[in-house]
């Protein structure tokens, strides 16, 4: 392998023959687990289905196949287990909506009690099951530092029930409960919460954000998380074509733009302190990101809401400054 | 369930405030009775945890298994660990006419202002005794010793054994000594109490 910097080799390819085998993604390996296999009922272009496979396959590699999963109610659970079929090739337990973290804590404790502590536990939930109804149990799991990797697939709304607003819905987004009617311009500014920041406040061993646009980065973060014990939290942005009003072929592109605009900062934190960020190579104006999504369509057109777009731009700029996301800048 | 007599041999009601060891007193009495081969039951009245609040506890002792867990309504003995509670309504309710009222007080029975109490009254300065030996006013073991001496529900020896098991080391010895002191004082006071109970 030469020292030459090869630009073809990078994060935009799931696998690449120019890479050393050890640096290739799990997804590029035909022998991957395929933890969630084909035949499930997800929408075309579903970011969550893609992320779940990437995350769990990476977790299976990291744990030598010694892993069990707990899954909250939501899109992922519903489209993957229509009795009598199941798309899961790993041990999988459906919890309820708000308790994936508590159920996972119980699984971890039970395995340890039985002397099977080598088996790792991964909990999965959507943003609703994490930041809203799931936050009590999740905070409890964090505070006890239970040995669970909790993965939140954030599509920024209650998608499975028809696209209602959640505590992760971004400002100005149109959802079934924040339609831009009357004087409202979509979801209100000044609401919402950042679970990654809340997770950091619990000072758990590892917190990371990622998107489905950068599979190497996502897999690496799963591997990092799995190399640790205690509570670990991974927050993955997963565009939802149905809920966001994007083209089903734009899922990866939209996720990339979210990161490159600064609206979705990509970073890692260890023991509550930022440990690294994924720098933006070229800052993309938020408008380029927003225009691809029908949930922001009301911001454009005649007259549209240019003031709101401007406000979102300022939010993105603040996020970039806060996390030090632009290349060449120090935090 | 098998056929048994329905009334317990002895029923005691303890009154005091949270933090004075009222519940412990009832439990110690029950343990002592158990160790003497009798059936016994201690039940506290219940509330959220709070010091200074009125607390009631019951103890039943019988020579047959005790099946019922209802509150003691006709106690043969009422023990008042805190004299400031003497005039709280209900404190003497149900006390049998041939029963005993044992009060933690430096006063004499006829100085307590209970002219309507027909039961025998005995006072023991339990707080003072415990302050002298323990350095703080914890009247329950003194009163238990007095109770044992006055009623014979349990022996002093059984009581002291229960105390030593409950409070390990020095605390156990000190409290056992307090029980003995209470026992002794009760013997002294009981003659006084008997004569005063005739009045009014």
């Amino acid at each position, binding site marked *: 392998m030469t020292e030459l910097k090869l630009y073809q080799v990078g994060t935009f390819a799931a696998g690449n023959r120019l890479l050393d085998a050890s640096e290739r993604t799990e997804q590029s390996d035909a022998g991957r687990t395929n933890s969630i296999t084909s035949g499930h009922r997800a929408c075309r272009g579903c970011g969550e289905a893609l992320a779940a496979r990437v995350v769990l396959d990476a977790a299976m590699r990291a744990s030598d196949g010694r892993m069990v999963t707990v899954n909250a109610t939501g899109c992922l659970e519903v489209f993957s287990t229509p009795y009598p079929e199941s798309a899961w090739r790993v041990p999988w337990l459906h919890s309820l909506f708000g308790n994936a973290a508590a159920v996972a804590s119980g699984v971890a404790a*039970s395995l340890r009690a039985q002397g099977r502590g080598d088996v790792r536990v991964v909990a999965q939930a959507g943003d609703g099951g994490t930041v809203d109804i799931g936050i009590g*149990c999740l905070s409890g799991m964090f505070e006890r530092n239970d040995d669970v990797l909790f993965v939140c697939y954030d599509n920024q709304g209650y998608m499975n029930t028809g696209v209602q607003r959640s505590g992760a819905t971004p400002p100005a987004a149109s959802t079934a409960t924040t339609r831009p009617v009357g004087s409202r311009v979509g979801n209100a500014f000044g609401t919402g919460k950042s679970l990654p920041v809340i997770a950091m406040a619990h000072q758990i061993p590892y917190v990371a954000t990622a998107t489905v646009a950068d599979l190497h980065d996502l897999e690496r973060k799963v591997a990092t998380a799995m190399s640790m014990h205690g509570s670990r939290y991974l927050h993955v942005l997963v565009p939802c074509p149905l809920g966001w009003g994007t083209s089903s072929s734009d899922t990866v592109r939209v996720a990339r733009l979210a990161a490159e605009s600064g609206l979705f900062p990509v970073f890692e934190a260890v023991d509550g302190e930022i440990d690294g960020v994924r720098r933006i190579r070229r800052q993309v104006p938020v408008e380029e990101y927003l225009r691809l999504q029908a949930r922001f369509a009301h911001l454009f057109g005649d007259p549209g809401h240019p003031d709101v777009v401007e406000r979102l731009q300022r939010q993105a700029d603040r996020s970039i400054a806060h996390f030090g996301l632009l290349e060449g800048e120090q935090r | 369930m098998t056929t*048994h007599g329905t009334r317990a041999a002895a029923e005691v009601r303890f009154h005091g405030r949270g933090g004075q060891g009222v519940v412990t007193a009832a439990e110690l009495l029950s343990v002592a009775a158990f160790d003497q081969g009798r059936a016994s039951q201690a039940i506290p009245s219940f509330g959220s945890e709070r010091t200074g609040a009125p607390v009631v506890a019951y103890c039943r002792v019988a020579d047959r298994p005790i099946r019922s867990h209802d509150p003691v309504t006709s106690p043969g003995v009422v023990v008042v660990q805190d004299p400031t509670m003497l005039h709280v309504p209900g404190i003497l309710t149900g006390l049998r006419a041939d029963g005993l009222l044992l009060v933690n007080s430096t006063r004499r029975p006829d100085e307590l202002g209970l002219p309507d109490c027909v039961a025998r009254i005995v006072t023991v300065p339990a707080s003072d005794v415990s302050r002298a030996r323990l350095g703080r006013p914890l009247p329950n073991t003194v009163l238990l010793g007095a109770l044992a001496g006055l009623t014979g529900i349990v022996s002093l020896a059984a009581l002291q054994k229960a105390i030593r098991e409950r409070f390990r080391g020095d605390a156990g010895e000190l409290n056992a000594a307090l029980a003995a002191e209470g026992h002794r004082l009760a013997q002294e006071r009981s003659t006084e109490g008997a004569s005063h109970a005739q009045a009014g």
Partner: protein
Amino acid sequence: MLRQVEGSRAVAETVARCRPDVVAAYPISPQTHIVEALSDLVAEGRAGRCEFLMVESEFGAMSACIGASAAGGRAYTATASQGLLFMAEALPNASGLRLPVVMTVANRALGAPINIWNDHSDAMSQRDAGWIQLFASSNQEAVDLHVQAFVVAESLHVPVMVNMDGFVLTHAMEGIDVPDQDEVDALLPPFRPLHVLDPDHPVTIGAMVGPEAFTEVKYLEARRQLRSLDAIQEVADRFHRVTGRRSGGLTSSYRLEDADVVLIGLGSLLGTAADVVDELRDEGLAVGLLGVTCFRPWPLDEIRDSLADASRVVVLNRALSVGFGTVLGADVRLTLAGSQVVVHDVVAGLGGRPVTRDLVRRLLVEAVRGELSDHQLTFADLDVDLAERELLGELVGPMDVEPEGVGR
């Protein structure tokens, strides 16, 4: 070994001897002494390899038990009242997934108004959750039932709730014989789950079942519950053979043989009632007592047979089904449908008001004399005057005054 010990402490020691893998604990009056004692026992190494998980809520507690059980571990928790409601979503989840979790419920009233004292409304509210519900009439039985609960749960793969009266039993100190480790081991083998999270044999637990299969799933669950009646009695018989003690089972009867009037109830009031039955028998009244130990599934045949020779039954309910009547009373009426037995439905002892000897005596004497209503619910310990005054006040209120200026 028989020793003077607090009910909660005895239960905790029993649970520890049942070798749990995970105990999930969240405190609520009046269960606190149980989880506190278990915490000490685990820390002292007296609960085997048990993991003690201090969860953030009762919902977290039952959730953790579900996870623990699905991972192949023996799981236990305890709660009461509001806590039971807070985990309500997880209860049918456990039974639906056939996870044999065992839980103590220290029976306490449901708010509002908030009330921390003993009645049976909490257990009643979850009677349809698919859990087996056993009621202890004494602390000895409470202790014994916990061993039996694990045996029943794990042989049937159904979760079991052991109900014991809050404060009245949990905080009572009396002579209790806690089964020793050998006795427990003779009765309770290692847990063999029906399905388990295991990387070597991956399965999906908890799929989404649609209209095409749901009915069959629930029917099978119902059939299994009814079959469990035999198993529950069988486990009680086995318990008797190992310990020499009669505890548990479906019902308990006392002087029922030639009883004309029978009192039916749940829990610790049965002890009080037994004393009263003896007194009244001495006075020549043919009264008897039937205790329901297994409340769910409802042992209909057993109860019907037990009451075959009675002419009157007094059901003493410590819970009220607002807008309907009572649960236990309704269950008894259903059981006796078509028979000539007169049922007197009585409510007493709500929110910790004690069921006293005097109250039970009065009820039985009135029943014998035919003075109890057989069609109206009797509130036996109600301050009638106070209630009537309040109701009168509600009838003559602002609503009866014409608002000014409003035309007809």
